[in-house]
């Protein structure tokens, strides 16, 4: 039980630190930096919990992105800043870096089969993150734009 808790704390802490540099890189307003880091950490932790409860990494990424987007919605209202400040920095820790890297290595080595497997995995995780953000965006869009398709 203790070790599980530590594992989650580690994920939260590393997610927090991992988001910090990106917040700075995107020059987010100073008063929102900590909130960005918490958003990123929450996303990672929620994804870990979802995967522990039996979700696939893709499904977990979707749920993690839902958490990030929901947090972004409320934080944006609280700080009165554009929502993307929190959603962009928040999903970055969930980016499928290792599958993307394997895709490149396998293709470069001529292993097209293994490359494709990794490419599909990368796209599914990336797509799950995108869908998570979009779901919340569509549900919270209060006034529709005239003349837009969505």
């Amino acid at each position, binding site marked *: 039980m203790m070790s599980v808790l530590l594992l989650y704390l580690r994920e939260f802490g590393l*997610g927090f630190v991992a988001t910090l540099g990106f917040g700075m*890189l995107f*020059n987010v307003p100073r008063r929102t930096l900590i909130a960005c880091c918490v958003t990123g950490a929450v996303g990672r932790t929620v994804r870990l919990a979802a995967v522990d409860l039996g979700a696939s990494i893709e499904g977990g990424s979707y749920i993690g992105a839902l958490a990030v987007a929901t947090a972004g919605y409320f934080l944006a209202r609280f700080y009165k800043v*554009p929502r993307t400040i929190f959603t962009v920095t928040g999903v970055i820790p969930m980016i499928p870096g290792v599958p993307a890297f394997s895709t490149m290595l396998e293709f470069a080595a001529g292993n097209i089969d293994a490359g494709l497997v990794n490419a599909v995995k990368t796209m599914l995780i990336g797509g799950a993150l995108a869908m998570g*953000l979009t779901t919340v965006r569509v549900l919270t869009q209060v006034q529709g*734009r005239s003349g*837009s398709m969505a």
Partner: protein
Amino acid sequence: MNLPETLDTNERLNLLVRAGVLLLENGAATYRVDETLKALGRALELGDIEVFTTPTGFTLQAGGSSCPLTRVHRITHVGVDMNRLAAVNNLSREALSKALTPEQIADHLSQIEQQRSIYPAWLLAAGVSISCGAFGMLMGGGWTEFVAGVLGALAAMLIRLRLRRTLVLPLMVTVVTAFVATAVSRISCHALHCTSPDLASVAAVLQLVPGVPMVTSVLDLATGDILSGVTRGAYAALMAVGIALGMLLFLVWGLR
């Protein structure tokens, strides 16, 4: 409401162009550019504004169909600065609620244009490299991967800050930076006897991931701005290919 007529319609339209440039150059999603410019247009009493926004430029028209005034503006520089986006967003809200005069809006815009980065270069380099190291651990690495990732990311960040001022093409900056990040993290891994040097090099290049174009691309597609969404997606894909190219240049022909 009677505004003092000190700025004529042309000058007020130019203010809108400046706001549009600020938004597009710093990574705003298309619907936000449209909405912000329309709100600012109302505040400047320009009547109904028509805006056509793409990531590489925008067209702006005011004055209705009887006496239209048009501006076309190209965007050549693309960066990310959330602080400026938040500031322009705030300005468009305040312009309406506090009934700012065109002069006050112009002053605010000049202020935003002159804003520098909040985080000094040394802090940025330190923050980004520590974050990249944390990524190495999140992906399953240990402390040696953390250190190698930090070193690779730090070297890459220093090169990147330098190149941004000299190299014009963002793709070139990405390729060179990815190469440096991979080289330094791999060599550090060799010295530190890392068990998984791959993780360290992935961690070090993660700072180059085009996060803002990827997310705004999805946002654009979701809000119906298909053209902008596809364009931004293509840009993000190009940058991803640039990262892969930079890494492969080292992994294939460098020290293996």
